[in-house]
């Protein structure tokens, strides 16, 4: 069967060119490694944010806030480093993602109901991690501000107690506790649900769930998108052969054998698909070896097949629309990079401006990345990514079909 022989020949060519093949596969791996190093400080490490804490206040509240990372979960996420004034110089040297500064008198101002300021100095060389700290600080400040308003009476009493050198009486402490308890009970209906939600979703996620999902590592976050990019480039390389074969006279020669144009096109399409799929599985295996949990095997396999089909189809279609290898290279590189940029391979879609988000959904990269990220969530199964599978698979079949028809028409027109 001629198409199968063409596929086997193409695979043999990959084996005979180990350096070229390794380079193709290494591109997404290198990018993933670089992303991990830039954002996480280790190839497959979990997100760990180094934060300098400059506590001039040295009070109960500032120490409580500054010691947030002492909980077991946050301790893994935050590397809190107590510093003095030298912290500002450390920030200038880019030695941490952010510096949190509690100025002298912070607690007293807070208890007195005066404006109290927490300063956050961000590392301009980093984008996301300082933002995490800023958002965290903003939430903390909001909670404290609301607390200050609700518990104003009790806070003033506590302020008076702390100002007094004598130990407060049981009655005074009990009075404050009773007041706090009474207000909490009356506010329970409105205050607790959002606070609890906030803590469970953004501050203290269940450790077991996060580890099972495998999504807490930088590599796990970026590898799906970068893998998709790598597969698109792999498919680009495989489809380049179609044009190279045409330009070098190999197609003309091949058609002098008992091989029809349809055999050749079918063989090349299958070949591109097989190469892309193998490449994707290689990247999946690399991710697993590096500690990334892709989710259930069946879901991952289905996504790999659908994403590879979409990538292969898209590149076959592009190569069928242009006349020369160099044109195809230029056009497909532009398409791949645009898809990766707006599809969320490099930057999370949530960071995009509103007008760009719907555009992301026009790219196979988005559906692949979204699918893999869904699959990484605890309890995800094939049904959870069914839309992604349908979009990727459907697009792949349509692209491949159109590409094959366009190639056939070109060959029939003498462009061989």
């Amino acid at each position, binding site marked *: 069967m*001629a198409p199968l*022989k063409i596929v086997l*020949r193409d695979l*043999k*060519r990959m084996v*005979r*060119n180990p350096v070229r093949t390794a380079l193709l596969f290494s591109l997404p791996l290198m990018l993933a490694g670089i992303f991990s190093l830039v954002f996480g400080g280790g190839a497959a490490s979990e997100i760990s944010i180094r934060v300098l804490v400059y506590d001039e206040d040295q009070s109960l509240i500032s120490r409580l806030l500054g010691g947030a990372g002492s909980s077991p979960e946050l301790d893994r996420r935050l590397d809190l480093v107590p510093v003095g004034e030298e912290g500002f110089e450390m920030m200038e040297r880019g030695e941490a993602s952010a510096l949190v500064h509690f100025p002298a008198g912070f607690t007293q101002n807070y208890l007195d109901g005066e404006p109290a300021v927490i300063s956050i100095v961000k590392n301009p060389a980093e984008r996301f991690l300082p933002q995490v700290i800023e958002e965290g600080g903003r939430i903390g400040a909001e909670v404290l501000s609301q607390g200050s308003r609700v518990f104003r009476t009790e806070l003033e009493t506590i302020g008076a107690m702390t100002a007094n050198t004598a130990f407060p009486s049981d009655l005074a402490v009990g009075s404050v506790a009773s007041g706090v308890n009474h207000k909490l009970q009356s506010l329970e209906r409105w205050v607790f649900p959002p606070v609890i939600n906030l803590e469970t979703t953004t501050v203290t996620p269940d450790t077991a769930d996060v580890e099972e999902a495998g999504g807490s590592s930088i590599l796990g976050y970026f590898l799906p998108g970068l893998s998709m990019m790598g597969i698109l480039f792999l498919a680009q390389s495989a489809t380049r052969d179609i044009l190279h074969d045409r330009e*070098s*006279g*190999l197609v*003309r*020669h*091949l*058609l*002098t*054998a*008992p*091989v*029809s144009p349809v055999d050749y096109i079918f063989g090349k399409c299958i070949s591109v698909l097989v190469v892309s799929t193998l490449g994707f599985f290689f990247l999946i295996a690399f991710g697993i070896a590096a500690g990334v949990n892709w989710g259930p095997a069946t879901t991952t396999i289905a996504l790999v097949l659908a994403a590879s089909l979409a990538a292969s189809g898209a590149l076959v279609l592009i190569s069928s629309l242009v006349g020369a290898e160099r044109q195809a290279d230029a056009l497909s590189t532009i398409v791949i990079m645009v898809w990766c940029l707006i599809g969320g391979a490099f930057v999370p879609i949530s960071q995009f401006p509103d007008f760009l988000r719907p555009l992301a959904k026009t790219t196979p990269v988005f559906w692949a990345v979204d699918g893999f990220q869904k699959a990484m969530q605890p309890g995800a199964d094939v049904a959870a990514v069914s839309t992604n599978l349908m979009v990727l698979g459907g697009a792949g079949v349509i692209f491949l079909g159109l590409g094959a028809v366009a190639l056939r028409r070109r060959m*029939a027109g*003498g462009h*061989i």
Partner: protein
Amino acid sequence: MITIEGLRKHYGDIKAVDGIDLEIQDGEIFGLLGPNGAGKTTTISMISGVLRPDSGRITFDGMNIWVEPKKVKRNLGVVPQEIAVYEDLTAKDNLDFWGSLHGLRGPGLKSAVHAALERVGLEDRAKDRVKVFSGGMKRRLNLCMGLLHRPKYLLLDEPTVGIDPQARLAILDIVREVAAAGTTVLYTTHYMEEAQDLCDRIAIIDHGQILTIGTLEALTRQSGESEVLKVVGNFDEAAANQRLSGLSGLRLIRVEAGTVLAGIDATGPGLLEILPQVLGSGLSIDDVSIQKPNLQSVFISLTGRELRD
């Protein structure tokens, strides 16, 4: 037998092939001789079933290649003008792939690959990647791929372009051997010497049309000239035309400033009478060369141009 009737291929207004009729007998080496751009490659592309003709019919022993392509192609070997091999594969890989496309497998494929490599002298380079081969070696491998499945018909499209004389001779020897074993060969070239040395019959093609067909002897006789004179000197075109055109038995083939090509009529007065008249014509002549009519002179007499123009 390969039969070609009324073959035409146009690209817009350009008539690449304009009504070709040929019959190539079994076991014959048939040459298609013409300058670059004459339509040789387009013709061979249509005959080999790669390029669909606008009109015309091509049959191999009565089987139309455009009606029963796979059946015909099993007996067809084609050696293209381009070196159409996979450079990142070894010579053996290329032949294994090519043989498998022609239905060879197992021990049959292995022995065919070995025999083909041996025939072209590449047996000791079987496991080398083609990218390290010289141009001549690649050409030989190209030829090898056309011969691998022992085809009944072999089409060669300028298989010796760009290689050294030694490699060219080796390829011509192989073609002779193949033809001697009964294979029908269609050989296109723009090298007059190759066509003269190799082919049983030759068709001269120009601007997509066959100008003449015949054996070398018949073609040279057909020109009606016993000798061809090339006169070189210091004269202009008008003077040469004026002084030489009236000489009996001399046919001016091409006249340019400083060069005149002229044929001596086989039925006229003859060289010994005409040569003194040319030398005494009053033209400032530096050199006169005399040659027997060959394909070059036949081509010139038919087109007014040299074969390599």
